[in-house]
């Protein structure tokens, strides 16, 4: 019974979204469905938090390899949650100065704002920045002209790397106008415009066809894997 209800919800929701672009009267229904999706997505945040707590607590209690990271994750999770929900250090809003919690949790000067500015921002920026080191090391160790395809890839990479910097102008800027298409910066644009776009469009069209067929299978109840188990 519960599976039938889930299948019915899927069918009705899917059909509503499908017909809404063609039937003006269905536009409001589609917005309602989207609202429900947003509500479910918000509930998923709670489930995600619970799952994170469960997994990290299990790793911590088992004292397995890397349990210290679990402790740090748990500490960060609990402290951030407490600071955000409790509006720690929030300055009262000017419209209601007598109400201590009237300000927003991420207002300047609040503890949440402090965590964002001095913990999260440097950590995420650093994580992104260290990619440059790994990319350099990986390029040295793995980028080999072993065959024709790999060589073409290598040459393309060189053109893009040089064409996206001032080096392209310095190296090939002297070429006359009639050969300007061979300037590195223009070659880089041509590669993106022609070869990359053609390949990507083929992939996008393929994905779209796959999404459409999967959507129909879900709505018709032929694919029930999202219900869990072998249903």
């Amino acid at each position, binding site marked *: 019974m519960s599976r039938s209800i889930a299948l019915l919800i899927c069918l009705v929701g899917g059909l509503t979204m499908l017909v809404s672009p063609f039937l003006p009267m269905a536009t409001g229904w589609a917005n309602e469905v989207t609202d429900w999706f947003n509500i479910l997505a918000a509930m998923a945040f709670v489930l995600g938090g619970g799952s994170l707590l469960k997994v990290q607590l299990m790793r911590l209690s088992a004292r397995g390899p890397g349990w210290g990271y679990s402790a740090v994750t748990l500490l960060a999770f609990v402290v951030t949650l407490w600071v955000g929900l409790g509006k720690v250090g929030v300055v009262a809003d000017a419209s209601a100065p007598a109400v201590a919690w009237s300000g927003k949790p991420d207002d300047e000067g609040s503890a949440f704002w402090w965590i964002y500015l001095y913990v999260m921002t440097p950590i*995420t920026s650093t994580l992104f920045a260290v990619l440059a080191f790994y990319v*350099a090391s990986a390029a*040295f160790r793995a980028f080999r002209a072993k065959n024709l395809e790999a060589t073409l890839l290598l040459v393309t990479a060189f053109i893009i790397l040089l064409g996206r910097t*001032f080096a392209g102008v310095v190296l090939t800027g002297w070429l006359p106008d009639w050969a300007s298409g061979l300037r590195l910066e223009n070659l880089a644009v041509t590669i993106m415009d022609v070869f990359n776009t053609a390949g990507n469009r083929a992939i996008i069209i393929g994905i779209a066809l796959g999404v459409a067929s999967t959507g129909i299978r879900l709505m018709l109840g032929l694919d029930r894997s999202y219900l869990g188990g072998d249903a």
Partner: protein
Amino acid sequence: MSGTLDRRWIYLAMMLAVALPILWNGVTGKTFPESPTPPSQACFDAIEALPAGSRVLVSFDYDPASEGELAPMATTFLRHLMHKGLRPVIIALWPLGPTKAEETIANVMKVDFPDRVSGRDYVNLGFQTGNEGVLKVIGTDFRKQFPVDRSGTPVDRLPIMEGITKVGDFPLVITISAGYPGGKEWVQYVSSANPGLVLLAGVTGVQASQVYSYYPGQLRGMLAAIKGAAEYEALVSAAIDGDRVTAPKYTEARRRMAPQLFGHLLLIALIVIGNAMYFAQRRCKAVAP
């Protein structure tokens, strides 16, 4: 064979390749000249074509991880819009987008355009969860997803939102995006459903190859990574500053092109050295008894 070069030397070389040009930038204040590619020029032209007073929807779809590439774009977009007398309505599909927007507003509007008033000349409507669901709904009912601005004022009371009922009411939409949801979703759910709407995107290098497929059809213009940002920044600086010295905050993208140049040159050198070692090793194996 690759084991003969300790990876720590590579890390050191990369650090120097990036750090020394930054130092050079800081000492001399010089940047490389930029000539705009068509996607960057298209961004500039689309904004220039709008009459003063037009409202432009700007979506901050990124977080601090991508700030290095995208913050200079956001700064230049807002500077250009404000200089032209356009009115940005800012939203975010990423939770940390509104904070990035506030930082940019403080950096651009409050310093260089102090006479502009929030709610009348620009507004930050904050973040809404739901990813492409948000885009689907604002296609028909903008206020349903963004009923109040970031300070809690109902949008019905904001002069800037007068007459705006759906996303198609904006003549121009700009997304500054680092991934999902971002440029691709704006094309699929907004640009495709509103043929008259002009969509511009500023994207990270990783996203550029994917989003490029929509240019120049569904996507009128595009800033691809820091290079695109530098090109657009140069165009805007030339239009606004002319021969005057540009404030350092408006040269951020161009200042990052020197570290990018030397980083790329190092990458090429490493690939060439790696291949030379590989072929030398293969030849040694071939001649060995």
